Protein backbone atom coordinates (compact mmCIF):
# COMPACT_ATOMS: atom_id res chain seq x y z
CA UNK A 1 0.00 0.00 0.00
CA UNK A 2 1.45 3.24 -1.15
CA UNK A 3 0.92 5.15 2.05
CA UNK A 4 3.24 6.71 4.64
CA UNK A 5 2.13 5.48 8.02
CA UNK A 6 3.00 7.77 10.86
CA UNK A 7 1.45 6.85 14.18
CA UNK A 8 3.60 9.40 15.94
CA UNK A 9 1.46 12.11 14.36
CA UNK A 10 -0.82 12.22 17.38
CA UNK A 11 1.94 13.65 19.52
CA UNK A 12 2.98 16.32 17.08
CA UNK A 13 1.63 19.83 17.59
CA UNK A 14 -1.46 20.75 15.60
CA UNK A 15 -1.54 23.98 13.58
CA UNK A 16 -4.34 25.41 15.75
CA UNK A 17 -1.84 25.95 18.55
CA UNK A 18 -4.05 23.96 20.89
CA UNK A 19 -1.50 21.27 21.67
CA UNK A 20 -1.03 18.02 19.83
CA UNK A 21 -3.21 16.34 17.22
CA UNK A 22 -4.45 14.07 19.98
CA UNK A 23 -5.64 17.13 21.88
CA UNK A 24 -7.42 18.20 18.71
CA UNK A 25 -9.32 14.92 18.54
CA UNK A 26 -10.12 15.01 22.24
CA UNK A 27 -11.54 18.51 21.92
CA UNK A 28 -13.71 17.10 19.11
CA UNK A 29 -14.80 14.28 21.38
CA UNK A 30 -15.72 16.78 24.09
CA UNK A 31 -17.82 18.76 21.62
CA UNK A 32 -19.49 15.56 20.40
CA UNK A 33 -20.47 14.72 23.95
CA UNK A 34 -21.64 18.23 24.82
CA UNK A 35 -23.79 18.42 21.71
CA UNK A 36 -25.15 14.93 22.23
CA UNK A 37 -26.05 15.54 25.87
CA UNK A 38 -27.86 18.79 25.15
CA UNK A 39 -29.61 17.18 22.18
CA UNK A 40 -30.58 14.22 24.33
CA UNK A 41 -32.10 16.45 26.99
CA UNK A 42 -34.14 18.22 24.32
CA UNK A 43 -35.15 14.87 22.81
CA UNK A 44 -36.22 13.43 26.16
CA UNK A 45 -38.23 16.44 27.24
CA UNK A 46 -40.07 17.17 24.00
CA UNK A 47 -40.25 13.50 23.06
CA UNK A 48 -41.89 12.67 26.38
CA UNK A 49 -44.45 15.42 26.01
CA UNK A 50 -45.31 14.36 22.48
CA UNK A 51 -45.27 10.67 23.40
CA UNK A 52 -47.71 11.31 26.23
CA UNK A 53 -49.92 13.38 23.97
CA UNK A 54 -50.23 10.44 21.63
CA UNK A 55 -51.67 8.33 24.45
CA UNK A 56 -54.21 10.88 25.68
CA UNK A 57 -57.87 10.36 24.88
CA UNK A 58 -58.06 13.84 23.34
CA UNK A 59 -58.28 13.66 19.53
CA UNK A 60 -56.52 17.01 19.16
CA UNK A 61 -53.55 15.94 21.27
CA UNK A 62 -53.33 12.67 19.37
CA UNK A 63 -53.28 14.37 15.99
CA UNK A 64 -50.75 16.93 17.11
CA UNK A 65 -48.50 14.14 18.34
CA UNK A 66 -49.02 12.21 15.13
CA UNK A 67 -48.19 15.19 12.91
CA UNK A 68 -45.16 16.07 15.03
CA UNK A 69 -43.69 12.60 14.78
CA UNK A 70 -44.35 12.29 11.06
CA UNK A 71 -42.82 15.70 10.43
CA UNK A 72 -39.54 14.96 12.15
CA UNK A 73 -39.32 11.33 11.10
CA UNK A 74 -39.84 11.72 7.39
CA UNK A 75 -37.03 14.10 6.57
CA UNK A 76 -33.33 13.28 6.56
CA UNK A 77 -31.53 14.75 9.55
CA UNK A 78 -29.15 16.51 7.21
CA UNK A 79 -32.05 18.30 5.52
CA UNK A 80 -33.49 19.26 8.89
CA UNK A 81 -30.17 20.76 9.96
CA UNK A 82 -30.08 22.75 6.72
CA UNK A 83 -33.59 23.98 7.39
CA UNK A 84 -32.62 25.22 10.86
CA UNK A 85 -29.24 26.57 9.84
CA UNK A 86 -29.74 28.06 6.40
CA UNK A 87 -33.47 28.48 5.88
CA UNK A 88 -34.90 29.54 9.23
CA UNK A 89 -32.83 32.72 9.64
CA UNK A 90 -33.79 33.81 6.13
CA UNK A 91 -37.53 33.53 6.63
CA UNK A 92 -37.46 35.27 10.00
CA UNK A 93 -37.64 39.06 10.17
CA UNK A 94 -34.26 40.42 9.20
CA UNK A 95 -33.14 41.52 12.67
CA UNK A 96 -34.09 38.22 14.30
CA UNK A 97 -32.42 36.26 11.51
CA UNK A 98 -29.25 38.27 11.85
CA UNK A 99 -29.19 37.78 15.59
CA UNK A 100 -29.64 34.06 15.10
CA UNK A 101 -26.87 33.85 12.54
CA UNK A 102 -24.40 35.80 14.62
CA UNK A 103 -24.94 33.85 17.79
CA UNK A 104 -21.60 32.65 19.02
CA UNK A 105 -21.38 28.88 18.50
CA UNK A 106 -24.33 28.91 16.13
CA UNK A 107 -23.41 25.45 14.76
CA UNK A 108 -23.42 24.03 18.28
CA UNK A 109 -26.86 25.38 19.13
CA UNK A 110 -28.29 24.48 15.75
CA UNK A 111 -26.89 20.96 15.96
CA UNK A 112 -28.15 20.40 19.50
CA UNK A 113 -31.62 21.62 18.73
CA UNK A 114 -31.77 20.00 15.29
CA UNK A 115 -30.54 16.60 16.43
CA UNK A 116 -32.61 16.94 19.61
CA UNK A 117 -35.86 17.50 17.74
CA UNK A 118 -35.04 14.78 15.23
CA UNK A 119 -34.49 12.32 18.06
CA UNK A 120 -37.51 13.56 20.01
CA UNK A 121 -39.81 11.99 17.43
CA UNK A 122 -38.16 8.64 18.04
CA UNK A 123 -38.33 9.05 21.81
CA UNK A 124 -42.02 9.90 21.44
CA UNK A 125 -42.69 6.71 19.49
CA UNK A 126 -40.81 4.61 22.03
CA UNK A 127 -42.61 6.19 24.96
CA UNK A 128 -45.98 5.80 23.31
CA UNK A 129 -45.22 2.12 22.83
CA UNK A 130 -44.01 1.84 26.43
CA UNK A 131 -47.18 3.40 27.83
CA UNK A 132 -49.25 1.28 25.46
CA UNK A 133 -47.61 -1.86 26.78
CA UNK A 134 -48.79 -1.19 30.35
CA UNK A 135 -51.99 -2.98 31.40
CA UNK A 136 -55.02 -0.73 30.92
CA UNK A 137 -55.94 -1.38 34.54
CA UNK A 138 -52.97 0.65 35.73
CA UNK A 139 -54.40 3.84 34.37
CA UNK A 140 -57.82 2.94 35.73
CA UNK A 141 -56.40 2.13 39.15
CA UNK A 142 -54.66 5.48 39.29
CA UNK A 143 -57.84 7.21 38.20
CA UNK A 144 -59.96 5.24 40.69
CA UNK A 145 -57.71 6.42 43.51
CA UNK A 146 -58.57 9.99 42.57
CA UNK A 147 -55.25 10.86 40.89
CA UNK A 148 -55.65 13.45 38.15
CA UNK A 149 -54.43 12.64 34.65
CA UNK A 150 -51.21 14.55 35.27
CA UNK A 151 -50.65 12.80 38.58
CA UNK A 152 -51.47 9.44 37.04
CA UNK A 153 -48.79 9.92 34.38
CA UNK A 154 -46.32 11.44 36.78
CA UNK A 155 -46.50 8.85 39.54
CA UNK A 156 -47.79 5.69 37.91
CA UNK A 157 -47.56 5.41 34.12
CA UNK A 158 -44.33 7.22 33.28
CA UNK A 159 -42.11 5.62 35.95
CA UNK A 160 -43.13 2.21 34.63
CA UNK A 161 -43.06 3.13 30.95
CA UNK A 162 -39.57 4.61 31.17
CA UNK A 163 -38.26 1.52 32.90
CA UNK A 164 -39.71 -0.65 30.15
CA UNK A 165 -38.23 1.42 27.33
CA UNK A 166 -34.82 1.88 28.92
CA UNK A 167 -33.07 -0.57 26.54
CA UNK A 168 -34.41 1.07 23.35
CA UNK A 169 -33.70 4.49 24.86
CA UNK A 170 -30.10 3.42 25.32
CA UNK A 171 -29.75 2.79 21.62
CA UNK A 172 -31.51 6.06 20.86
CA UNK A 173 -28.99 7.86 23.03
CA UNK A 174 -26.19 6.15 21.14
CA UNK A 175 -27.87 7.25 17.91
CA UNK A 176 -27.93 10.80 19.24
CA UNK A 177 -24.18 10.70 19.79
CA UNK A 178 -23.62 9.30 16.31
CA UNK A 179 -26.02 11.75 14.70
CA UNK A 180 -24.07 14.75 15.95
CA UNK A 181 -21.53 13.81 13.27
CA UNK A 182 -24.01 14.97 10.64
CA UNK A 183 -23.46 18.48 11.98
CA UNK A 184 -20.03 18.68 10.34
CA UNK A 185 -22.08 19.87 7.36
CA UNK A 186 -22.92 23.06 9.26
CA UNK A 187 -19.37 23.54 10.51
CA UNK A 188 -19.52 21.83 13.88
CA UNK A 189 -16.04 20.58 14.69
CA UNK A 190 -16.99 17.51 16.65
CA UNK A 191 -15.06 14.25 16.64
CA UNK A 192 -15.59 13.29 13.00
CA UNK A 193 -15.00 16.91 11.99
CA UNK A 194 -11.74 17.10 13.91
CA UNK A 195 -10.62 13.78 12.48
CA UNK A 196 -11.24 15.28 9.08
CA UNK A 197 -9.30 18.47 9.97
CA UNK A 198 -6.47 16.31 11.19
CA UNK A 199 -6.53 14.44 7.91
CA UNK A 200 -6.47 17.70 5.98
CA UNK A 201 -3.65 19.26 7.96
CA UNK A 202 -1.44 16.22 8.44
CA UNK A 203 -2.53 14.13 5.42
CA UNK A 204 -2.57 11.10 7.70
CA UNK A 205 -6.06 9.94 6.67
CA UNK A 206 -6.09 6.50 8.15
CA UNK A 207 -4.44 7.38 11.45
CA UNK A 208 -6.95 10.17 12.00
CA UNK A 209 -9.98 8.01 11.19
CA UNK A 210 -8.66 5.07 13.17
CA UNK A 211 -8.31 7.25 16.23
CA UNK A 212 -11.82 8.67 15.79
CA UNK A 213 -13.18 5.14 15.34
CA UNK A 214 -11.54 3.97 18.55
CA UNK A 215 -12.89 6.97 20.44
CA UNK A 216 -16.43 6.26 19.18
CA UNK A 217 -16.11 2.62 20.22
CA UNK A 218 -14.95 3.71 23.68
CA UNK A 219 -17.83 6.13 24.08
CA UNK A 220 -20.20 3.39 22.99
CA UNK A 221 -18.78 0.94 25.51
CA UNK A 222 -18.97 3.50 28.31
CA UNK A 223 -22.57 4.44 27.52
CA UNK A 224 -23.69 0.82 27.21
CA UNK A 225 -22.05 -0.07 30.51
CA UNK A 226 -23.46 3.02 32.18
CA UNK A 227 -26.96 2.25 30.97
CA UNK A 228 -26.68 -1.37 32.14
CA UNK A 229 -25.81 -0.11 35.60
CA UNK A 230 -28.71 2.31 35.46
CA UNK A 231 -31.02 -0.49 34.34
CA UNK A 232 -29.95 -2.60 37.28
CA UNK A 233 -30.31 0.36 39.62
CA UNK A 234 -33.89 1.13 38.62
CA UNK A 235 -34.92 -2.51 38.22
CA UNK A 236 -37.90 -3.48 40.34
CA UNK A 237 -37.36 -6.55 42.55
CA UNK A 238 -39.35 -9.48 41.31
CA UNK A 239 -40.56 -7.65 38.24
CA UNK A 240 -39.22 -8.78 34.89
CA UNK A 241 -39.26 -6.12 32.20
CA UNK A 242 -39.38 -7.20 28.62
CA UNK A 243 -36.49 -9.61 28.07
Amino acid at each position, binding site marked *: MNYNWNWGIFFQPNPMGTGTYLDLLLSGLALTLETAVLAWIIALVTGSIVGVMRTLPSKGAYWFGFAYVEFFRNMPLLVQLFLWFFVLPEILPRAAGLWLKQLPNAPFWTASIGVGLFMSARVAVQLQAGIGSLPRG*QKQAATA*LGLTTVQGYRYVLLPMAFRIILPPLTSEFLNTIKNTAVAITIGLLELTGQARSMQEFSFQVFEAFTAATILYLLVNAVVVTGMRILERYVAIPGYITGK
Partner: protein
Amino acid sequence: MIEISHVDKWYSSAFQVLKDCTTSVAKGEVVVVCGPSGSGKSTLIKCVNALEPFQKGDITVDGTKVNDPKTNLPKLRARVGMVFQHFELFPHLKIIDNLCLAQEKVLGRGHDKSVTKAMMLLDRVGLKEHAQKFPAQLSGGQQQRVAIARALAMDPIAMLFDEPTSALDPEMISEVLDVMVDLAREGMTMMVVTHEMGFARKVANRVIFMDRGEIVEDAPKDDFFGKPRSDRAQKFLSKILSH
Protein backbone atom coordinates in the same frame (compact mmCIF):
# COMPACT_ATOMS: atom_id res chain seq x y z
CA MET B 1 -75.69 6.21 48.72
CA ILE B 2 -75.33 5.08 45.08
CA GLU B 3 -78.24 5.81 42.72
CA ILE B 4 -78.15 4.39 39.21
CA SER B 5 -81.07 5.39 37.03
CA HIS B 6 -81.82 4.53 33.40
CA VAL B 7 -78.20 4.22 32.33
CA ASP B 8 -77.52 3.40 28.68
CA LYS B 9 -74.06 2.88 27.20
CA TRP B 10 -72.90 2.14 23.69
CA TYR B 11 -69.39 1.37 22.48
CA SER B 12 -70.39 2.06 18.94
CA SER B 13 -73.75 2.87 17.51
CA ALA B 14 -74.30 -0.84 16.94
CA PHE B 15 -73.10 -2.26 20.22
CA GLN B 16 -75.02 -1.45 23.37
CA VAL B 17 -73.35 -2.65 26.58
CA LEU B 18 -75.79 -1.24 29.13
CA LYS B 19 -79.54 -1.04 28.62
CA ASP B 20 -81.66 1.10 30.87
CA CYS B 21 -79.99 0.01 34.09
CA THR B 22 -81.60 1.22 37.28
CA THR B 23 -80.68 0.24 40.81
CA SER B 24 -79.31 1.64 44.04
CA VAL B 25 -77.10 0.80 46.97
CA ALA B 26 -78.06 2.17 50.34
CA LYS B 27 -75.61 3.19 53.04
CA GLY B 28 -74.14 0.13 54.76
CA GLU B 29 -75.67 -2.18 52.19
CA VAL B 30 -73.70 -4.94 50.42
CA VAL B 31 -74.86 -5.62 46.88
CA VAL B 32 -73.48 -8.48 44.80
CA VAL B 33 -73.65 -8.18 41.01
CA CYS B 34 -73.42 -11.40 39.03
CA GLY B 35 -74.09 -12.67 35.54
CA PRO B 36 -72.40 -14.39 32.60
CA SER B 37 -69.28 -12.85 31.10
CA GLY B 38 -70.00 -10.00 28.74
CA SER B 39 -73.21 -9.15 30.55
CA GLY B 40 -71.98 -5.63 31.37
CA LYS B 41 -71.52 -6.02 35.09
CA SER B 42 -67.92 -4.78 35.13
CA THR B 43 -68.89 -1.91 32.90
CA LEU B 44 -71.73 -0.95 35.21
CA ILE B 45 -69.50 -0.86 38.26
CA LYS B 46 -66.89 1.19 36.40
CA CYS B 47 -69.57 3.70 35.48
CA VAL B 48 -70.18 4.35 39.16
CA ASN B 49 -66.89 6.20 39.58
CA ALA B 50 -66.83 7.39 35.97
CA LEU B 51 -63.98 5.15 34.83
CA GLU B 52 -66.28 4.44 31.91
CA PRO B 53 -68.38 7.17 30.37
CA PHE B 54 -72.05 6.52 29.55
CA GLN B 55 -74.38 8.23 27.15
CA LYS B 56 -77.76 8.29 28.87
CA GLY B 57 -79.18 8.26 32.38
CA ASP B 58 -77.77 9.43 35.70
CA ILE B 59 -75.56 8.05 38.44
CA THR B 60 -75.41 9.83 41.79
CA VAL B 61 -72.92 8.97 44.52
CA ASP B 62 -73.58 10.45 47.95
CA GLY B 63 -75.59 13.25 46.39
CA THR B 64 -72.99 14.07 43.71
CA LYS B 65 -73.92 13.52 40.11
CA VAL B 66 -71.16 11.52 38.40
CA ASN B 67 -72.12 12.50 34.88
CA ASP B 68 -72.25 16.22 35.57
CA PRO B 69 -69.35 17.91 33.76
CA LYS B 70 -68.97 20.26 36.73
CA THR B 71 -68.27 17.42 39.13
CA ASN B 72 -64.69 17.23 40.38
CA LEU B 73 -64.12 13.62 39.42
CA PRO B 74 -60.78 13.01 41.16
CA LYS B 75 -62.32 14.24 44.39
CA LEU B 76 -65.33 11.99 43.97
CA ARG B 77 -63.25 8.98 43.03
CA ALA B 78 -61.04 9.48 46.05
CA ARG B 79 -64.14 8.88 48.20
CA VAL B 80 -65.08 5.66 46.40
CA GLY B 81 -62.64 2.79 46.82
CA MET B 82 -62.14 0.40 43.95
CA VAL B 83 -60.55 -3.04 43.75
CA PHE B 84 -59.66 -4.53 40.36
CA GLN B 85 -59.63 -8.02 38.97
CA HIS B 86 -55.88 -7.84 38.28
CA PHE B 87 -55.06 -5.95 41.50
CA GLU B 88 -53.32 -3.14 39.59
CA LEU B 89 -50.79 -2.40 42.27
CA PHE B 90 -48.15 -0.03 40.94
CA PRO B 91 -45.21 -2.37 40.30
CA HIS B 92 -42.49 0.26 40.66
CA LEU B 93 -43.63 1.33 44.14
CA LYS B 94 -43.07 -0.53 47.39
CA ILE B 95 -46.20 -1.81 49.14
CA ILE B 96 -46.08 1.04 51.62
CA ASP B 97 -45.70 3.60 48.83
CA ASN B 98 -48.61 2.07 46.95
CA LEU B 99 -50.72 2.86 49.99
CA CYS B 100 -49.28 6.33 50.58
CA LEU B 101 -49.23 7.71 47.04
CA ALA B 102 -52.86 8.75 46.73
CA GLN B 103 -53.18 9.71 50.38
CA GLU B 104 -50.44 12.27 49.89
CA LYS B 105 -51.10 13.40 46.35
CA VAL B 106 -54.90 13.42 46.41
CA LEU B 107 -55.90 13.92 50.01
CA GLY B 108 -52.83 16.02 50.81
CA ARG B 109 -52.08 14.05 53.94
CA GLY B 110 -48.66 14.42 55.50
CA HIS B 111 -46.18 11.62 54.93
CA ASP B 112 -46.06 10.46 58.56
CA LYS B 113 -49.79 10.40 58.86
CA SER B 114 -50.10 8.43 55.61
CA VAL B 115 -47.52 5.90 56.74
CA THR B 116 -49.27 5.40 60.09
CA LYS B 117 -52.58 4.88 58.34
CA ALA B 118 -51.00 2.54 55.79
CA MET B 119 -49.31 0.42 58.44
CA MET B 120 -52.53 0.15 60.37
CA LEU B 121 -54.36 -1.11 57.30
CA LEU B 122 -51.58 -3.49 56.30
CA ASP B 123 -51.72 -4.90 59.78
CA ARG B 124 -55.43 -5.35 59.37
CA VAL B 125 -55.06 -7.38 56.15
CA GLY B 126 -52.21 -9.30 57.77
CA LEU B 127 -49.36 -7.99 55.63
CA LYS B 128 -47.58 -5.57 57.90
CA GLU B 129 -44.21 -7.31 57.52
CA HIS B 130 -44.36 -6.96 53.70
CA ALA B 131 -44.51 -3.16 53.72
CA GLN B 132 -41.05 -2.71 52.25
CA LYS B 133 -41.47 -5.27 49.46
CA PHE B 134 -42.42 -4.67 45.87
CA PRO B 135 -45.73 -5.99 44.50
CA ALA B 136 -44.05 -8.58 42.27
CA GLN B 137 -42.55 -10.19 45.36
CA LEU B 138 -46.01 -11.00 46.77
CA SER B 139 -48.46 -13.74 45.87
CA GLY B 140 -51.69 -12.92 44.08
CA GLY B 141 -53.79 -13.19 47.21
CA GLN B 142 -51.42 -10.95 49.13
CA GLN B 143 -51.42 -8.43 46.31
CA GLN B 144 -55.19 -8.28 46.27
CA ARG B 145 -55.28 -7.72 50.04
CA VAL B 146 -52.80 -4.87 49.55
CA ALA B 147 -55.08 -3.48 46.87
CA ILE B 148 -58.00 -3.52 49.29
CA ALA B 149 -55.87 -1.82 51.93
CA ARG B 150 -54.83 0.77 49.36
CA ALA B 151 -58.46 1.58 48.62
CA LEU B 152 -59.31 1.72 52.32
CA ALA B 153 -56.46 4.12 53.00
CA MET B 154 -58.50 6.79 51.27
CA ASP B 155 -61.27 6.48 53.91
CA PRO B 156 -63.86 5.66 51.27
CA ILE B 157 -67.56 6.02 51.86
CA ALA B 158 -68.18 3.03 49.60
CA MET B 159 -66.15 0.25 48.01
CA LEU B 160 -66.43 -1.18 44.50
CA PHE B 161 -65.05 -4.65 43.78
CA ASP B 162 -64.61 -5.76 40.18
CA GLU B 163 -64.24 -9.56 40.24
CA PRO B 164 -61.64 -9.37 43.00
CA THR B 165 -60.98 -13.11 43.16
CA SER B 166 -61.33 -14.28 39.58
CA ALA B 167 -57.63 -13.87 38.75
CA LEU B 168 -56.53 -15.78 41.84
CA ASP B 169 -55.44 -19.35 42.34
CA PRO B 170 -58.13 -21.24 44.26
CA GLU B 171 -56.13 -21.52 47.47
CA MET B 172 -55.82 -17.75 47.69
CA ILE B 173 -59.43 -16.88 47.17
CA SER B 174 -60.50 -17.34 50.75
CA GLU B 175 -57.84 -15.06 52.24
CA VAL B 176 -59.23 -12.25 50.10
CA LEU B 177 -62.86 -13.10 50.78
CA ASP B 178 -62.18 -13.15 54.52
CA VAL B 179 -61.00 -9.56 54.37
CA MET B 180 -64.10 -8.61 52.38
CA VAL B 181 -66.43 -10.37 54.79
CA ASP B 182 -64.89 -8.51 57.72
CA LEU B 183 -65.32 -5.28 55.84
CA ALA B 184 -68.97 -6.01 55.13
CA ARG B 185 -69.65 -6.88 58.76
CA GLU B 186 -68.16 -3.56 59.84
CA GLY B 187 -70.87 -1.85 57.84
CA MET B 188 -68.98 -0.72 54.71
CA THR B 189 -71.18 0.12 51.74
CA MET B 190 -70.07 -2.33 49.04
CA MET B 191 -70.88 -3.11 45.45
CA VAL B 192 -69.24 -6.37 44.45
CA VAL B 193 -69.04 -7.98 41.01
CA THR B 194 -68.29 -11.63 41.71
CA HIS B 195 -69.19 -15.22 41.02
CA GLU B 196 -68.51 -16.22 44.63
CA MET B 197 -72.01 -17.17 45.65
CA GLY B 198 -70.78 -18.34 49.04
CA PHE B 199 -69.71 -14.79 49.74
CA ALA B 200 -73.04 -13.50 48.52
CA ARG B 201 -74.94 -15.89 50.76
CA LYS B 202 -72.87 -14.91 53.73
CA VAL B 203 -72.93 -11.10 53.62
CA ALA B 204 -74.94 -9.72 50.73
CA ASN B 205 -78.13 -7.79 51.35
CA ARG B 206 -79.16 -7.88 47.71
CA VAL B 207 -78.12 -9.68 44.57
CA ILE B 208 -78.33 -8.17 41.10
CA PHE B 209 -78.29 -10.49 38.09
CA MET B 210 -77.31 -9.03 34.75
CA ASP B 211 -77.46 -10.45 31.25
CA ARG B 212 -76.76 -8.78 27.89
CA GLY B 213 -76.47 -5.35 29.45
CA GLU B 214 -79.73 -5.52 31.31
CA ILE B 215 -80.50 -5.85 34.98
CA VAL B 216 -82.63 -8.95 34.83
CA GLU B 217 -83.08 -9.50 38.50
CA ASP B 218 -82.57 -7.26 41.54
CA ALA B 219 -83.72 -9.03 44.72
CA PRO B 220 -82.97 -9.50 48.40
CA LYS B 221 -80.44 -12.29 48.90
CA ASP B 222 -82.89 -14.84 50.27
CA ASP B 223 -85.40 -14.26 47.49
CA PHE B 224 -82.68 -14.56 44.86
CA PHE B 225 -81.30 -17.84 46.12
CA GLY B 226 -84.73 -19.09 47.17
CA LYS B 227 -86.89 -18.49 44.15
CA PRO B 228 -85.25 -16.68 41.25
CA ARG B 229 -87.87 -15.51 38.89
CA SER B 230 -86.21 -15.45 35.52
CA ASP B 231 -85.14 -18.44 33.43
CA ARG B 232 -81.85 -16.84 32.68
CA ALA B 233 -80.93 -16.39 36.35
CA GLN B 234 -82.00 -19.93 37.09
CA LYS B 235 -79.84 -21.32 34.30
CA PHE B 236 -76.88 -19.20 35.40
CA LEU B 237 -77.20 -20.29 39.01
CA SER B 238 -77.51 -23.95 38.16
CA LYS B 239 -74.36 -23.69 36.07
CA ILE B 240 -72.14 -22.06 38.66
CA LEU B 241 -73.54 -23.97 41.62
CA SER B 242 -73.49 -27.37 40.00
CA HIS B 243 -70.04 -28.28 41.29
